[in-house]
């Protein structure tokens, strides 16, 4: 059947217009205003070129936020995705109760971040929290801590709030694993491969693309992470648990410096583009397998 190509632009137009209005234009404005001294308290915006960017490279708070963000992206892409994938690899063999586990593991992902934040704020509460209570009951009172407010434990404690809940990764990888051609797996078994070898040498390579996709999702989740940190530590103690969105918010909210906040915004976009490129290149997400 001959396709009338003339209609293609017409059908694409609404999506293109929406993209331009909702994403491209705001992005252009973020970049544009990052070149201005744009503050709430100033009478007018003044063009200052790349001065905000020069301030950025001399700002230790920004670098702390940047390094935390990059570390969290790394942890999320490796640990979180690995955990989700391992659970999917266990569940795709359909052991007893696999449907229940699949559903139960998804539950933390459908609870709002605000609620999760409050739950963990209480779990880690130094006075009546579960963690310290269990330690006390086990006779380990010396190990009790103010987990979220001690510089030594705040970062891992905050990370624990999200890194273990890989329900989305499990669901996506599991769906892909369940759709694999059973004859290929059977052929491997007939050739004498152990179940572990089948998983590692046959199943996992065929899940590479979906794993890449979940890594992209994990990285973007970390780039957007705000509410959980804001509720639990607000970036503290000091700047121990701050990240780029929180740093941007702080500059916007307390310094009322919109130009500098948008400079940080441009950096978030850049970090996102770099992360996506690295993941796509590493896992060849956009290339054909066969």
């Amino acid at each position, binding site marked *: 059947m001959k396709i009338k190509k003339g209609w293609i632009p017409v059908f694409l137009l609404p999506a293109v217009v929406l993209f331009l209005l*909702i994403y491209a234009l705001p992005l252009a404005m973020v970049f544009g205003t990052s070149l201005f001294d744009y503050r709430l308290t100033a009478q007018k915006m003044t063009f200052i070129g790349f001065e905000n960017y020069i301030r950025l490279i001399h700002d230790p708070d920004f670098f702390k936020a940047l390094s935390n963000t990059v570390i969290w992206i790394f942890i999320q892409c490796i640990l979180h995705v690995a955990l989700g994938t391992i659970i999917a690899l266990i569940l795709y063999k359909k052991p007893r109760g696999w449907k229940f586990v699949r559903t139960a593991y998804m539950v933390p992902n459908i609870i709002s971040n605000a609620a999760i934040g409050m739950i963990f704020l209480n779990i880690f509460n*130094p006075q009546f929290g579960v963690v310290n209570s269990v330690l006390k009951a086990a006779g380990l009172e010396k190990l009790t801590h103010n987990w979220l*407010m001690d510089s030594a434990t705040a970062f891992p404690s905050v990370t624990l709030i999200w890194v273990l809940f890989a329900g989305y990764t499990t669901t996506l990888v599991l769906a892909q694993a369940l759709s694999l051609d059973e004859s290929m797996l059977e052929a491997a078994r007939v050739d004498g491969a152990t179940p572990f070898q089948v998983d590692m040498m046959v199943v996992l390579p065929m899940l590479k693309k979906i794993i890449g996709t979940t890594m992209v999702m994990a990285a973007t989740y970390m780039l957007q992470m705000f509410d959980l940190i804001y509720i639990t530590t607000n970036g503290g*103690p*000091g700047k121990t648990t701050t990240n780029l969105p929180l740093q941007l918010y702080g500059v916007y909210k307390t310094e*009322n410096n919109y130009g500098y906040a948008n400079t940080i915004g441009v950096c978030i976009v850049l970090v996102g583009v770099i992360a996506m490129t690295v993941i796509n290149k590493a896992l060849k997400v956009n290339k054909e397998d066969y």
Partner: protein
Amino acid sequence: MAAVMTAALFTGCGKSGDTAKSDSDNGVITINYPTFQCGVNTAAPVVAKLVAEFNKEYAGKYQIKLEEVPGDANYVDKIKVQLGTGDLPPVVYGAGYNLLDLALAKNLVVDLTDKVNADPEWKALYSKTALNTNSRNGKIYASSVEGSIVGYFYNKDLFAKAGITEPAKTWDEFFQQCDKLKKAGITPLAMDTADSAWVTQLWWGAMVATSNENGLKFMQTMNPSDYNTPEMVAAVEKVQKMLKEYTTLDAIGGKYENAANNFLSGQAAMIANGPWMIGDFSDTTKTTEGFADKVGAAVYPGNFVYDAPIQGYFVTKQDDPKVEEAAIAMVKFFTSAHAQQLGLEMQGMVPASDTVKITDKASEKYPLLVDFLGKATNASIRSDNMQATMYSNLLDVVSQELPRLYSGELDAKAFCQKLTDAAAKNK
């Protein structure tokens, strides 16, 4: 965030609808007034009554239309977005958020000096401190309704259990009392570090103000930039001691609510806070029946009390002078002696003006408030609180660095240096 800021920019393309407008049918000027004093806010009934009274008094001429913006933070965000677009509502309540200076920086505030000076009744309501709070460069821009006289509350039962007969008069005595309470198995202080550490800052500021003349001068300075002063460092050392030895574990990282709960549940013996907390002492959803009878109020050691009216209502520049006139009438009405008395009687609010009499009705309803106001009258040292005078970006720094002060990661000098560095970002 980018989308939010872009939305804020786009808002400038149109009118927000908050401005006053003249009703062409009957010539009534309607003032759209956004306020956070609605819903469960303790001032909501007072504001609602004032609006009803104003609309009755100015029937056929002016009318206030309330726009409810629940939550202080939402209100501040809304006003900031509108400041960005230059399209403010005719009347803005500065409250404790120093919105006046932000609006002045944009040259959007109406100068009330001539109006106030021409009206002896209105002018008489401005105490010296109220004049300072609401004036800039000798010009009056705002009018206060609410005073802010802040001391601390103590649990009389817990004091008695520790053998303490009356609140401390000096800081040495205060710390001795803390030791006595601790020895009796009672946590002396309810404190916090999150959300700008309101309760902790009150203790801290009181120690700075009563240290010496320089300390008091510091506390009376708007937007101080150097926190590396001997008085400040000494006070921070004591705050560190308080956090380490005299408060609950959950104070570190805890919010005001944690501190309040610890006091209201009888777990801590003292809490620094303003009279607006008095209502909580008899609220059985927050504490036990009869708790109010156990609470005493005191001024700080060194005979100090925080005393600065809360920044009041101001009028913003409008295209139509009639709208500005209406807004001025509203501000005058909302800050009148009648309005202040209404706040006192209905809400237990401290009046901004010392000329407003404490009525029998208020004395009967709020005996602890009246008792405290009596003690506060004799306080010899007064200043604004530190939160109100510090650069707004320091509020977060205080919250973020207090836990490190507690853990010993920062000493008092390093903590003060952090504040000085953060203050320098405003230059």
